[in-house]
């Protein structure tokens, strides 16, 4: 049973408190800067994007959803990657965005862009209000509390039928557009989403390498250390949480406008699982990781769609292989190419 190489090795080094309390920041930051490999990854994604754009068909939709989820993940990465906190409930804010957009457009006739912004504001305030007490929790308890937020929001969106129409769902949500110009064409939608995602990434990159971003990353590895240097931990955690909520809300709104229909399931547990997958497959804590993860994890099921009834099995297996062989995400694979490679690999 025991291969001595695997059994020994530096694999033991981390203690539990390392693993639970501080999320992944250790891996993250050193790979975070958009270096050569980042550029390589970006080029690859751009090629994939170009391929899908030219090929057309339903992969356009796959890519659209990837961009939307990607935006969600870039936001989540602020909280989980940079700041090292766990949130299983960011879908709550996506729901606020989605339903906000739907209701504001359909009931109150707001133009989509305005609806999106107003919904983001609502989500931001909501994040502020619930985050303030909740973020005192740590580790699994924070994970659970945020998880509860997501579940509560889900149930409310199911039950509050007068507002949300429950499982019936909200249909007839207008597409994005400015004034009389609606973005109707699938390719145009994709380009628009891509631009929005790039903007989101640009923000992420700017914030990461700044006083603000450094404070977040400091918190992720040592809260006492950060506090001793005068960083107001609750405030920074809250800021990261709110930023994540703003991204999530924008993603939720975009889903509503791009698909034209939402129902509670759109923002259900599935969303949590999918976005987690994206974050970890891409590489949490890195700038590009969330976007890479979103594209890869979105295309993966389509690649294995041909297996028919075995699609989920194939998907789960590929996912497991990815997680086992690139446990720190695809963008961390790039670390191999950097000098002073970070992590010793057992047996290598």
């Amino acid at each position: 049973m025991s291969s001595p190489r695997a059994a020994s090795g530096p694999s033991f080094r981390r203690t539990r408190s390392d693993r639970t309390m501080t999320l992944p920041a250790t891996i993250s930051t050193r790979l975070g800067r958009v270096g050569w490999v980042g550029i390589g990854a970006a080029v690859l994604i751009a090629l994939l994007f170009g391929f899908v754009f030219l090929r057309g068909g339903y992969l356009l939709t796959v890519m659209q959803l990837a961009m939307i989820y990607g935006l969600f993940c870039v936001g989540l990465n602020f909280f989980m990657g940079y700041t090292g906190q766990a949130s299983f409930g960011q879908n709550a804010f996506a729901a606020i965005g989605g339903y906000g957009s739907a209701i504001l457009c359909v009931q109150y006739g707001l133009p989509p862009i305005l609806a999106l912004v107003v919904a983001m504001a609502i989500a931001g305030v909501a994040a502020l209000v619930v985050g303030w007490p909740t973020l005192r929790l740590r580790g699994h308890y924070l994970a659970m509390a945020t998880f509860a937020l997501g579940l509560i929001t889900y149930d409310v969106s199911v039950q509050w039928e007068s507002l949300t129409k429950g499982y019936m769902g909200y249909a007839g949500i207008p597409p994005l557009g400015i004034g009389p110009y609606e973005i109707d064409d699938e390719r145009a939608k994709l380009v628009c989403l891509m631009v929005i995602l790039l903007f989101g990434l640009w923000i992420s990159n700017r914030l990461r390498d700044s006083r603000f971003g450094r404070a977040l990353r400091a918190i992720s590895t040592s809260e006492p250390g950060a506090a001793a240097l005068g960083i107001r931990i609750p405030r920074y955690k809250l800021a990261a949480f709110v930023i994540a909520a703003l991204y999530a809300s924008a993603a939720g709104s975009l889903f509503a406008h791009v698909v034209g229909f939402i129902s509670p399931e759109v923002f259900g547990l599935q969303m949590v699982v999918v976005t987690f997958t994206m974050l970890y497959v891409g590489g949490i804590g890195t700038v590009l990781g969330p976007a890479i993860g979103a594209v890869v994890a979105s295309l993966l099921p389509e690649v294995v769609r041909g297996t028919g009834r075995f699609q989920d099995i194939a998907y789960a297996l590929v996912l497991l292989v990815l997680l086992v062989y690139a446990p720190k995400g695809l963008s961390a694979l790039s670390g191999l190419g950097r000098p002073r490679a970070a992590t010793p690999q057992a047996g290598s």
Partner: protein
Amino acid sequence: AAQDTIKIGSSLGLTGYGSITDGHWREGLELAVEALNAKGGVLGKKLQLVHEDNKSIPQQAVLVYRKMMTEDKVVAFDSGCISAGNFAAASFVTRAKLPMMLCSILPQQPEEQKWAFSFLPPPKFEVDSRYEFLKSKTDIRKVGILGDPSPYGSLMRKFALEDAKEFGLEVVANESYQQEDADFSVQIGRINAAGAGAIIMIGQGNAVITVAKNIKSLGLDKMLLLGSVNERDLLVEAGRVLGDRYLFPSPIIQVAIDDLALITDPKARAAAEAFITPLKAKHGGKIDTSMSSRAWDSLLMLAQAMEAAKTTEGTAVRDAFEKIGPYVGAGAPYEFSPTQHVGITKNPYVIAYVKDGKLAINHDGR
């Protein structure tokens, strides 16, 4: 080769909460395709069924609908019961002018309803047949409702509350549950405490087994459980727990599977036989027909509309479909028209129960 086949798409919840229902819907579709192709296909071409799993969630439904439209170039849809998934896709299917046959309820937008045809009996029928049973066969006059919040369930609850008076019944408790709940004892206890003699359960799926178990373990041995339409496996499993105190509306074909004589109308019996014979040949004894029979009907009617339209072009097929007029199917009689896109207009249900592991019609009340 693409021109030699006519592709029909189907978005099905093969995993997730719709899995059992949609699995049967697929069986019906596949059977119909085989039968049609055996007779030479439609418009001289072979039919081909393309189906994808939407995992019972709308996001996936959007993807698979698009996939079938753009990759497979299907000319029409015949999709399963995941209402939200069908709603999510309805807008762009409508824009592409493709007709969609549905196992679920119709989308809510008027322009989308023009392209969708529902083969689901309207919720009122399910309610009324149970109320009628209570009124005529029992002396129970107080009932409690236990329902889930699915689209179909919500509609049904509305009727359950509205129609009770009509049948001289009083709804004394109005409880709800969620599909995945593991226990309903509290709700059932409240219904019992309110003095109800029967529970009107609203909602498909596995939950009925737990409800039956809960009634039993609460020792309520007078309480009747009147469940929703359901899959044969679930009916039998729940019936095993509560015996003849579990009653449910069933399309007659579901009960008549071993004894077609139960279907009195000869035309309907012939339609049922045409369906059941190949079904039994293919799937043996363990079969469910409540979903698959309507799936079969839907595809045969779609084929008929194509033949009538002499094309597979969406608008023509849709118009032809609206002109089919009264149609006696295996699962029910239908009457679609330009103004009527919910095809089942007469209550197709009988009240049945489980007897020795088989479904039986309740003739005498108990």
